[in-house]
């Protein structure tokens, strides 16, 4: 079974600084997707960024980028120029491409942005 581990329950960063959130996963599959979702206080899950496992190039979305290390099964999220609105719970998630089943989520990292 696939598992996703986020070892940092809480992180904090100064506004305008850079922070990296860690995620590791375990799977025997070679074709899959990885995601970072953000859950602000409203609790709606918002997609931040996604990565296809077959792509070697790391995904980027504006201030958000990932460091995808397939062999190490690591998928970290870097937030540059942190803003107060980035404060939220961040979830790493995995999905096998050959299934209609659910995403497997990590336990989340609560990010605080300090003014």
């Amino acid at each position, binding site marked *: 079974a696939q598992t996703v581990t986020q070892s940092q329950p809480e992180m904090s960063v100064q506004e305008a600084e850079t922070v990296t959130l860690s995620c590791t996963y375990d799977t025997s599959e070679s074709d899959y997707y990885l995601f970072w979702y953000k859950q602000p206080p409203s*609790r709606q899950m918002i997609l931040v960024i996604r990565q296809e496992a077959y792509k070697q190039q790391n995904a980027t979305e504006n201030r958000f980028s990932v460091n995808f290390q397939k062999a190490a099964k690591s998928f970290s999220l870097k937030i540059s120029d942190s803003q107060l609105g980035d404060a939220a719970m961040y979830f790493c998630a995995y999905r096998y491409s050959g299934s209609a*089943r659910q995403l497997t989520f990590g336990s989340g990292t609560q990010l605080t942005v300090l003014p």
Partner: protein
Amino acid sequence: SQTIHQWPATLVQPVGSPLSLECTVEGTSNPNLYWYRQAAGRGLQLLFYSVGIGQISSEVPQNLSASRPQDRQFILSSKKLLLSDSGFYLCAWTKTFSTDTQYFGPGTRLTVL
């Protein structure tokens, strides 16, 4: 564009009462639909998913059931709520079987007293 709705947004129910939460998706057809539950301070747990009308897969044995009476409608139900059913319920959809990204609705906060 596609939109996903959930209602009600908040619900307080006594133990033993029935439950019906509704999720609808607009702007797409034949979506895969998912129900998740999130306990306070925890990650998401998949409850049910559906790849078509009348097709429901259950992930966790529990006090809840799901139905999909229409292509873009997904309903979560219970005949008798338990205290442990309290939580935040999220509905999600994907466009097709092979599409990777799940998009989530705004959620329903359920408190069972």
